[in-house]
């Protein structure tokens, strides 16, 4: 007997430990979060875009030009390039993933990009879709027609584009770009290293244009027009426009991330503002807490002593689920939270089944201890059967769903599995550790339910 009570205490302590972990590892609930250990700081809830605010983009990759066997390689390198570009936003935890052209998708290769916290879609799509075009141009020969415009102030402006002619040297031949700061002026500058072809081209250009200017164009506009002093054979060049440090850093990143291996086009975009997301989180938490309280009230009023025990095991169930969300980690969406809240309702299902059976056994005149034992034995098959269909639904939804549905299927499916464990194991250990209540009238009252007194006057079932 003592063994069972010790076991019950151990489980209670473990449950308390799990709950403490959930509580302490959340920024909002732990006042000393800043001083918490790394383990706790690294296990906050992962919120989906609909809750944290951010942008969700779906691109279609045009792989028609790629040989069949190399599609997945091309998609991987596309993902890498986009990932590098996305990282330039300074977004925390961006997600870039390839969605294979399955049968359902009819062979369309897709790239899905999640940018938490980014709400300016236009800027985001521009940064992602655009290849930085770096060109080196030389002075146009004298006598070339030049376009000029007369400004509002009466001054004649010569269009700079007409002063220069393109060369073969472009950003394509770049092997690396790095950010440097001028030692004297502390101005940021971008230093370029060309590959072999680029080095040869650059040497030729500088050789032929000593004493003249060479213009460096970025995305069609000149950013720097240095004068060439001598031939540069080592393939190194420096752009020192009037950049801010951030601009220079972005340019370096964009130049290094390179061109996209396959063309992409935007299929769908979704942006959720942060305020909408946080109000959804608050609403979800509120709904969950009220749901738990109402169920706890119902269980205690209707099922009395076993009700209290099932509330404790429901509490442990909720702690386990929340801890798993943090540890796996599960990305929580509004639908995912709904799935979890529903699973709290379903989690009670197994306990209700057991308690109803226990009541029946009591009516048949069994002792409290035997009734508990029999109740568990009889209820197991019903518990199993009634959960199987929910597991089937969750599995299929998880398989075929979009990220939104997946969140729901995962929390509901996990909930069903974990609740089978918590309802059966935890409730059973608790119930069997309290049989000190004996077998008197009070005990029978505590173990029966609803409006009945638990006396065996209903013992004949008809």
């Amino acid at each position, binding site marked *: 007997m003592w063994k069972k009570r010790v076991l019950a205490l151990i489980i209670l302590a473990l449950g308390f430990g799990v709950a403490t972990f959930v509580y302490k590892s959340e920024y909002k609930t732990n006042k000393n979060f800043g001083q918490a250990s790394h383990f706790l700081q690294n296990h906050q809830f992962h919120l989906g875009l609909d809750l944290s605010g951010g942008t969700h983009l779906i691109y279609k990759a045009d792989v028609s030009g790629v040989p069949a066997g190399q599609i997945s390689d091309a998609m991987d390198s596309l993902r890498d390039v986009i990932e590098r570009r996305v990282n330039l936003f300074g977004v925390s935890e961006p997600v870039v993933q390839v969605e294979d052209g399955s049968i359902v998708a009819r062979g369309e290769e897709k790239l899905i990009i999640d940018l938490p916290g980014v709400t300016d879609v236009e800027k985001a799509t521009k940064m992602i879709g655009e290849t930085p075009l770096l060109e080196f141009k030389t002075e146009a020969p004298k006598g070339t027609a030049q376009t000029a415009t007369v400004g509002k102030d009466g001054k004649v402006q010569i269009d700079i584009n007409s002063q220069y002619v393109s060369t073969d040297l472009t950003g394509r031949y770049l092997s690396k770009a790095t950010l440097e700061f001028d030692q004297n002026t502390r101005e940021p500058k971008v230093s370029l290293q060309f590959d072999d072809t680029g080095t040869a081209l650059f040497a030729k250009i500088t050789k032929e244009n000593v004493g003249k200017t060479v213009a460096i164009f970025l995305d069609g506009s000149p950013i720097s027009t240095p004068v060439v002093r001598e031939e540069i054979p080592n393939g190194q060049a420096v752009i020192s426009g009037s950049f801010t440090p951030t601009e220079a850093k972005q340019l370096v990143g964009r130049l290094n991330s390179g061109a996209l291996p396959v063309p992409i086009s935007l*299929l769908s975009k979704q942006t959720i503002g942060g305020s909408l997301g946080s109000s*959804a989180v608050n609403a979800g938490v509120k709904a969950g807490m009220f*749901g738990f309280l109402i*169920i706890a009230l119902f269980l205690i009023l209707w099922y009395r002593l076993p009700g209290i025990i099932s509330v404790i095991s429901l509490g442990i169930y909720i702690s386990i689920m929340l801890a798993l969300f943090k540890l796996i980690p599960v990305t929580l969406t509004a*639908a995912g939270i709904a799935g979890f809240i*529903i699973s709290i309702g379903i989690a009670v299902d197994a306990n209700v089944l057991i308690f109803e059976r226990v009541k029946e056994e009591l009516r048949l005149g069994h002792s409290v201890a035997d009734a508990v034992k029999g109740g568990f034995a009889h209820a197991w098959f019903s518990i199993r059967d009634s959960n199987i*269909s929910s597991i089937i639904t969750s599995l299929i939804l998880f398989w075929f769903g979009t990220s939104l549905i997946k969140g729901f299927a995962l929390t509901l499916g996990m909930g069903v599995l974990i609740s089978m464990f918590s309802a059966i194991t935890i409730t059973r250990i608790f119930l069997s550790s309290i049989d000190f209540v004996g077998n008197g009238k009070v005990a029978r009252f505590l173990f029966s339910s609803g409006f009945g007194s638990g006396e065996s006057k209903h013992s004949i079932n008809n």
Partner: protein
Amino acid sequence: MFIIKYKKIFISISIALVILSFASLFTFGLNFGIDFKGGALMEVTYKDVRPAQTDLDTSLKPLNLGSILIQPTGDLGYIIKTKDISDIEHSSILSAISEGGKNVPEEKSFSSIGPSVGKELTRKAVLAIVLVSLGIILFIAYAFRKVSKPVSSWRYGFIAIVTLLHDVMIPVGLFTILSHYYGAEVDTLFVVAILTVLGLSVSDTIVVFDRIRENIKNRASTDFHETVGKSLEQVYPRSINTSLTVILVLLCLFFFGPSATKYFSLMMIAGMFFGTYSSIFLASPLLVWIEEFQNRNKK
């Protein structure tokens, strides 16, 4: 048991509700959201005063974006629905509704979904519904493989499927009414709600049938009517209580939960309610009715 005694009344109630649901489905139709159709939807909130809806209509007209639907939301916001739009069209809409820069709204959310994404989602949804239904039918067949007297096992399965259709059809009917009067749209969550109702309602029916099966095996009574009635008596507190707990949390989700899952929880509440109703008041009466029908034929 009064349910068995008045089974024809209960069966008729269910038939009437299903017919009403079908009627509402055919009159109002389903209103598909941009998840499935493609298109753009933006939600904006003004700081102090929101412009009149007609003013927005006139300022949006010159953009030539086809039909634009504007719905007020909250006290200061609007939801604007258009066809699938480009970045440039998006920013021109934003500037058109900011009254010449004097009253710039905050854009709370924006989504633009291309038609091909919508089509793919539709295929996925249909596939998911088909697979879940198949999975559940197989499960029912498995669960009732051993029962054969006096009603053969495939009839249990058949009745379980009939009640399943009943449990899904009535919430769908309710939804078409909501969608007609309150503008609710069929989105991904609608499909999720239907599939979850499928899973939960069948498990309820199975628990009732499980008890009937057990009582037949234990020879609780020689009369099939009585066996079913007695099984119902044993099972209904459980059935009602377990659905009640789920309905209670769903009610919390509906009243306090995020706006994104409001219609979802309402659909699920209806599904759970009728799922429980049908496992007690429809499935078992149908079982008895079939048994009576068989007997009559034998005589």
